């Protein structure tokens, strides 16, 4: 038997040269007896096992060739690779990610109490009230009312306002000339022709704290330009917190609608209400008193022209003097009622806080809203990541443990003898 001259035997461990020599010999690079002995040993070891069965080799080769041809025929488009259904791991990861995002949205959602959303819905609290004897409604097209009145009420309001405007115009003209001409024009296009009505409105505008003063100034200028005036105003600007301005305007009734529309363009409308009060009876009573006093004056003057005695003349002069005072009072009362009909009282409130500035469609507000959307999106992603991270760590730990366990089980086969 040929003795195999194994090299390097006897040493405690391999050195670099030994390993390099072995590698060179097995790679066919080494020469000499030692290299030959390594190659012989490898040949002997390899020759110990029987060759692969030709049938199996052919069958497996055919299967591999068939699979390769099948794979080549349906080469997946790399661009559409993401459309392929995910594996079990991908599906689990997708489900976990979607669940985490949903949970994050639920946690950080704008509907959660105490959490501001990216774009707050305007907290409209319109001061629409329904007092007895007063017909009130909000103007159509301003969807700010939480409890919009029926459409019929809106139409009634507009018709009444139209009639009021006409009546007010004629009443103003009449007041300027004399009492009988104060009668409101009848036959208006409204539902209450010939009625005298008083209009009032209130509007709440939203502005940023820094814009409250400027908005209040613009409201004042608008009132003057519409032929009205500011009855009273109060502006409170604070460095921090809520700033507020309140103005009481007196505007021509005929220009109320246009004025409200102009006010709405100054700043986003937070709330708006309009009211109407019928003062026809008051007007008629005042006109009646003026008519009575005027008729009494005519009668007194007629009696004076017929008086013959000194006593009758003095008495009639005294009564005419008293009648003059009554006429003056009646005219003043009629003018007051007429002024109520011709002018509308408008309460304007300008609220300025950080949230009110997020309404409207200006570039600044758009950027502000976009920033808030990004912040909330970031918060949602952060919460989702906070939910996913422990899950991912757990999954990695489980996968590592499973791999380690399988490896341990495999290696144990080699350890047991």
């Amino acid at each position, binding site marked *: *038997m*040929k*003795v*195999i001259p*194994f090299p*390097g*035997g*006897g*040493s405690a*461990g*391999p050195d670099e040269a*030994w*390993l390099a020599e*072995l*590698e060179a010999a*097995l*790679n*066919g*690079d080494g020469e000499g007896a030692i290299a030959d002995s390594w*190659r012989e*040993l*490898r*040949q*002997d*070891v*390899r*020759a*110990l*096992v*029987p*060759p*692969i*069965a030709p049938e*199996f*080799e052919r069958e*497996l*080769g055919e*299967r*591999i*060739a068939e*699979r*390769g*041809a099948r*794979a*080549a025929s349906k080469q997946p488009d790399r661009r559409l690779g993401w459309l392929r259904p995910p594996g079990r791991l991908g599906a689990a990861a997708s489900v976990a990610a979607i669940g985490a995002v949903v949970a994050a949205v639920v946690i950080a959602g704008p509907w959660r109490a105490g959490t501001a959303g990216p774009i707050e819905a305007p907290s409209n609290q319109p001061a629409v009230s329904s007092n007895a004897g007063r017909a009130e409604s909000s103007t159509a097209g301003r969807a700010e009312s939480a409890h919009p009145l029926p459409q019929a009420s809106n139409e009634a309001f507009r018709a009444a306002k139209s009639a009021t405007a006409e009546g007010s115009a004629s009443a103003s003209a009449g007041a300027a000339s004399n009492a009988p001409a104060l009668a409101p024009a009848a036959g208006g296009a409204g539902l209450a022709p010939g009625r005298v009505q008083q209009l009032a409105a209130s509007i709440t505008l939203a502005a940023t704290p820094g814009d409250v003063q400027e908005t209040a100034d613009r409201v004042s200028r608008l009132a003057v330009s519409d032929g009205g005036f500011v009855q009273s105003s109060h502006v409170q600007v604070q460095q921090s917190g809520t700033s507020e301005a309140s103005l009481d305007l007196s505007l021509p009734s005929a220009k109320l609608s246009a004025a409200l529309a102009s006010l709405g363009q100054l700043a986003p409308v937070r709330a708006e209400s309009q009211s109407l009060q019928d003062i026809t009876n008051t007007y008629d009573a005042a006109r009646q008193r003026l008519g009575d006093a005027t008729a009494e004056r005519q009668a007194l003057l007629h009696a004076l022209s017929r008086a013959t005695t000194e006593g009758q003349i003095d008495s009639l002069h005294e009564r005419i003097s008293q009648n003059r005072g009554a006429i003056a009072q009646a005219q003043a009362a009629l003018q007051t009622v007429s002024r109520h009909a011709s002018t509308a009282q408008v309460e304007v409130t300008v609220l300025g806080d950080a949230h009110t500035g997020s309404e409207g469609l200006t570039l600044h507000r758009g950027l502000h809203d976009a920033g808030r959307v990004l912040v909330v999106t970031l918060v949602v992603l952060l919460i989702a990541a906070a939910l996913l991270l422990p899950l991912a760590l757990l999954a990695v730990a489980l996968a590592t443990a499973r791999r380690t366990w399988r*490896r341990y*089980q*495999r*290696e*144990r*086969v*080699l*350890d*047991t*003898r």
Partner: protein
Amino acid sequence: MSRSVPSSDEHAQPGVARAWPGALDGEAFEALFRECGADVHAYAISLLGERTAAEDVTALAFERLYRSRARLDHRRGTPRAWLFAIARNAALDELRRRRRQPRYELEDELAADRDCAEALEHVERRTAVHDALAALPPREREVVLLKFHGQLSNSELARALGISESNAGTRLHRALTRLREGCLQAERQEEIA
């Protein structure tokens, strides 16, 4: 030995198994099978001792390699190294499933087949190698089988075994030393006999 060795002993020839082919597509995979199929089968049969089980493991190894071809990383070894790492895992799983230990006892049919085909001198030498190999601890025998059947470099051997390269070198050195001692012992026994 009248029958040729299942695979070429020549390491020097570069093929798809040694040079990274880029994408392991159909043709490259067929070439890999032609180069390594017999070696994988030889390694599996020497680890499992049964032809049927070795064929199952061989088919399974190629199947798994094909399925994971997209994840192959050329920085972590050649296709041959990947293939033998997969084959090793599959063979050990098979042994574990069958609650068996690795052995180096070829089936009688195979042994007889082998004996008839070889010259007497070769038979004596290879019998000594066989016995020495069978006497090795499974872990050391596995290193020898991977080294000679898989024709893996030391770094590839380390990756296949999941150990460091120096550890793989140590284990290989120890296994070959014991193999040598086993062969010498067999020689002495034969001389005494």
